[in-house]
Structures are given as C-alpha cells and as structure tokens.
C-alpha cells in the first residue's frame, strides 16, 4: 500500500534528520575504521602464516628487543587516556584544559614516533634482509603512518579549540570525537601488533 504523509510530518522529519546528523557521521567513521582494521588484519594474517610455514633461513638475523616497544605501548595507552580527558574538559566548556590535554596527547604521539625511529636505527636488520624483517617494517611502518596522521589531526584539533575563535566547542564536538575514536583505534591496533610481533 502506498500512502503519502502530510507536510507537517516531513518538516518534523527534516529537523529530526539534522539533529541526528552527528550520529551518522560517526557511523560512517566507524565503518571506515572497520575497513582500515581489515587492512591490518590482512597484514597480521600474512605475518602469522609466514611464521607458521616459512622458516628463517640460516644466518638470517631477526631479533627484537622489548624495552622500547614496551615503553611505546605505555605511551600510547596513556595518550588514549589524556585524549579522553580532553574531550571531558571540552564538554564542560573548559577549553584551556582541553588544549592542555590535547597538547600532552600530541607530545606523547610524537615521542612514540621518535622512539619508533630510534628502534629502527638500532635494529640489527634492514628492510630487505629477510622475510620477517620486511614484514616487521611493513607492519610497524603502516601503523606509524597512522600515528603520524593522528598526531597531525590532534594538532589541527588543538588549533581549532582555541577558547575564543575556536571552531570546535561543546556544541560542535564531532571533529574532536572523531579524532578521539581514530586515536583509540590506532592504540588498539598497536596493542595487537605488540602482542603478535613482539610477544608471540
């Protein structure tokens, strides 16, 4: 049966749509992150298969040290918490607190990247030395790219939450929430990566 509704209803519907606007942008972002996660899943699956069926050739070196990546794991987990604090502060309209927590988060991200580079330069193997070396660099590199992008976005958010002329306020939280979700996602991937690459 086909029925046409009255025009009053549709006007209400349109305003409802606008109110739920944020909602489906977040929904779109989550869908995107699922897709992004599948890229990592493919890399992890490749790495685990290599580990199961391709023995390391004689004389090839593939050894990882734990201290730096452990520190990096802590850095990222703390940064997830500080980002969360930033969002909480913005909700209470305390923009200067938000800015403080955001800059701490960005600095933690930058420290992570510096530590990662430091680890790269001190590893006893290069990109093309052997299969595991290549996979290690591909996986950590791809993740590092995500951290770099995330840090840049945090700095943009930092710029846009300036108390007076900032574009992001407690009324317009979406950009901050979006980057926060992305950042938690990147941290979560790191934890999986840390377990698979370093602990297994």
């Amino acid at each position: 049966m086909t029925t046409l509704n009255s025009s009053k209803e549709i006007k209400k519907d349109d305003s409802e749509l606008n109110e739920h606007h944020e909602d489906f942008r977040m929904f779109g972002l989550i869908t995107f992150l699922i897709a992004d996660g599948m890229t990592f899943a493919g890399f992890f699956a490749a790495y685990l298969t290599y580990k199961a069926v391709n023995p390391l050739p004689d004389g090839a070196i593939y050894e990882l040290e734990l201290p730096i990546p452990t520190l990096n794991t802590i850095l990222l987990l703390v940064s997830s918490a500080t980002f969360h604090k930033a969002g909480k502060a913005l909700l209470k309209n305390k923009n200067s607190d938000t800015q403080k927590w955001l800059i701490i988060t960005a600095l933690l991200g930058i420290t992570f990247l510096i530590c990662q580079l430091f680890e790269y330069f001190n590893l006893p193997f290069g990109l093309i030395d052997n299969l595991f070396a290549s996979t290690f660099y591909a996986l950590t590199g791809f993740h590092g790219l995500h951290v770099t992008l995330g840090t840049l976005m945090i700095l943009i958010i930092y710029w846009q939450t300036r108390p007076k002329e900032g574009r992001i306020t407690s009324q317009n939280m979406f950009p901050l929430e979006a980057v926060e979700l992305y950042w938690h996602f990147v941290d979560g991937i790191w934890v999986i990566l840390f377990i698979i690459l370093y602990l297994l």
Partner: protein
Amino acid sequence: MTILIDSPDSNNKSLQPKGWLRYFSFSLDHKVIGIQYLVCGFLFYLIGGTLASAIRIELASPISDFMPRDVYNQVLTLHGTIMIFLWIVPVVNGAFGNYLIPFYVGARDMAFPRLNAVAFWLIPPSGLMLVASYFVEGAAQAGWTAYPPLSITTPQSGQIIWIMSVLLLGGSSIFGGINFIATIIKLRRPGLKLMQLPMYCWAMLGTSLLVVLSTPVLAGTLILLSFDIVAHTGFFNPVLGGNVVVYQHLFWFYSHPAVYIMVLPAFGLVSEILPVHSRKPLFGYTTMVFSIMGIVVLGLVVWAHHMFTSGTPPWMRLFFTIATAFIAVPTGIKFFNWVATLWGGKISINSAMLFSCGFIINFVFGGITGVALAQVPFDIHVHDTYFVVAHFHYIVYGGTVFIIFSSIYHWFPKVTGKLMSEKLGILHFAITFIGFNLCFAPQHWLGLNGMPRRVAEYDPQFQFVNQISSIGALLMAISTIPFLLNIFLSIKKGKDSGDNPWNALTPEWLTSSPPPVENWEGDAPLVEEPYGYGKPISQENLIKKT
C-alpha cells in the same frame, strides 16, 4: 576529515551547474553522480570490449599472428582489469546504487554527498592511467590476478601503474560502500522499516559490507606486492624466502567476494524489474533477504576454492569445497524466487524483461558450472583452462552485464522522461543473447579438452571451435550498435514516457520523470509495500496518483 563529511545541503545544490554541463562537474547530486558512473563505466566497457575483440581475433588462428605474445598478455590483463574494476563494479554498484538508493530509502541525497563525488572522481583518472600504461613500457601482463612471481618478473612500470590504479579504484569502492551502508541504515525516512525496503537496498547493503570487509585486504596485499617490485623485499618472492601462496590467499580473500560485489547488486536489480513487468509481488521477500545475507557470510569463507592446485592441504580443500557448495543453497533460493515471481504473471515481453530472463537462463548455467568447479577432482582437471573462462563470463557477462542492460531499459524513462525503442531493444537482446552463448558455450568444451587460458597460441585441433567462439564475440561487438543507436535516438526523439510508464510501485516512480533536484516536489512517500502488484488497494492508489 571534516571536509569530506558533509550533509545534503540545498544551498550547495543551487550553485551546481545546470543542463549537460553538470555531468562534467563535481556535482553532489546523487542522480548526476549515478549517471556519471554509468556513462564513464560504459566508455570503459567499449575499451574493454575492443580489447576482448582483439583477443578473439588473435584466437581465431592457432598461431600468434595478430599481435606479439607479450602484447597479447597485456591485452588480456587490461581487458580483465578494465571490465571488472572500471565497468562492472562501478556501474552495478555506483551507477544504479547512487541513482536508486536515496529514492528507495526516501532521502533527498546520499548520507555523504561530498565523499560520493570524491569516490566517483577517483575513477576516470585511475582508468586513464591504466589505459595509458600501455604506452610506457608496456602495460601490466600478469593478468587481472597479478600473481607473483610473474608480476614481479615482468616489466615493472606497467605493473606499478596497474597497482596504483587498482588501489585508487579500491579506495573509490570503499568510499562508495561506506556511503551506501550509512544511507541505507541511517537515512531511511521515518516510518520506513528495514523489511519494507526494495530488494536492491538489501543487495547493496550486503555488497557494501563485502566491499568494506574485503577490499582493504586487497589494498594491503597490493602495497606489499609493490614493495616486492620497487624495494626488492621478498614477501611473495620465493627466491628471497617469500611465499607466493600467501599472496593468493590474500588476493582471493578479496577477489572471491568481488564476484559477489559484481553479482549481488544484479540480483537486487532483477528483483526490482521482474515484479514490475510481470505485475506480481516479488516471491519470497524474506527468504530473499536471508539469502543475500547468507551469501555475504558464506562469500567471505570460500576463497581458497581458487587455489586447489596451489598445494592446498586436504583439510582446506574439504572445507572450501563444502563451503562453496553451500552457496548454491541461497543462490538457488533466489533463482526459484525469480521463477516463482514470473509464474502466472501478466508478463510484458519488452527489452527489460527479455534481458532479465536472459540473465536467469545464463546465470543458472554459470551457477551449475560454478558448483562443478568447486569439486576438487573436477577443478584440478579444468584449472586454468577455458572452462573457467566460460564459467566466469556466464556469471559476469551473462549475469551482471545482461542485468545492466535490462536496468538501462527499465530506468531510462525515469532518467530522461523518454521511452526507448522496443524494436531496437529486442534486436539488441537477440544479438547479445545469441552472440554471448555462441562465444562462451563452446569454451566449456575447449576447457574440458584441455585448452589453457591466457596463452596466445593453442593446439590446432581447437581451431574450429575457437572460430565459432570468435564469431560469437563479433556478434557481441555488433550488438552495441543497436543499443547506442537506441540511446541516442530515444534521447533525441523518443516518445514521452510520462512519470510512471510501467505503473511501478517502488518509490523512485512516485515522482516526476526526470525527477526534480530534491527528488520529490513535496514529501517523500512512505511505500510500505513496494511490490504490492495485483492487490486491489494498491491499484486504487495508483489510479489516484495518475
């Protein structure tokens, strides 16, 4: 990130160019984007078809005389890549999805119009890049599958351009998928329940889930492959300790679902067309929905049936054979539902209906050979022969391309407000149907008798059957002439169709044809029974409307 995400905004639209020019602009209107996808895809279809003709000319004789062997490999690689990534996937998803889905959910545009336009405008440059790679150092020659070590050892620049272009097209496809999921789930007009959606929405929801879950894996794999080519890493290079089978697993994790990305939307479209032209409700709506979702789930766990000759262990062969055979169940349900929809209906024999019936016939044949191919002993016999080529073309050409044509005949009056010529349409169908079957049916025999695919030369005993196949290909090439003639003549001087020439009940017909920029002059109608044909209430309503 915030730039890409935008809301449907009427102010934006008034700034858009009008008339023909808008099809060349960064338009945010889903209807314009849909037509852009369709026309762009069809141009690439003509290029891919020209390449296919070149292949069939070469194969008319057993020796490699029409073109050198490496050029033959480039031609077949470009043919496969263009037809899959630039014609079928963008058209059956992007074109019809963008045009129809907002109507079906009762929205004025897609959820993310700007992301939508970005997704489309990634396609022309990457397609042109792919075609242009032929003039660099030769195009890629490793087939559309780009299996290493072949893809690592053939000339590099062509292969790298191929990878970049497929990555961009994959990105476009993912953006499109995100948009479709958000539109169908979040943008439905209030009061419209999921189980009241036209079947194409369900097909696009399933397809988009597959796109979002599997395309990123292909992207990751191709990035690793490009490292192997450029940086000489050894992910897939056995000489450097790598593993080619890992590439195959990752590749087919995308490329088996890719078959469903190409064919599920066609299932949806045919489910829209059949009820309208047989004046009967779609048979078994609920089973249809569950079949689509069943195919999505099963489609993700059958990929290794492409790898039975890759040293796959017995348990894997067993698992993937059984899982693949199971897909025949939901697919069979859909087939019987379509037949039951036609059964006892007031069938109008027009071009859209003929192409849809052609689809059912071709598809059931391709489905049967598909079940056969899933059986390990049979698969090992015909692996990499023309049997596989025949099976695949029965699915994607006999299946999806037939539905693309059927849909063009069905929705042409919607888009233009003009009727197409039925005489030319029926001529188009007759030549296509005969040509297609003449071209591909004999290839089953060739494959069973051991003619390998992807080789420019073959045993002279196969010449006669190959020539029959080439004549079929010639007919398929000729069939585009009445089609194009029909399109241009109908746009120029076709009869006015009125708003709803088929007396259809799905929402896109309940507005003027062509539709206004905002889709409906007033409010979006709430269509609770999109297939309520033959019921007294709906007839009454229809009369009230017209």
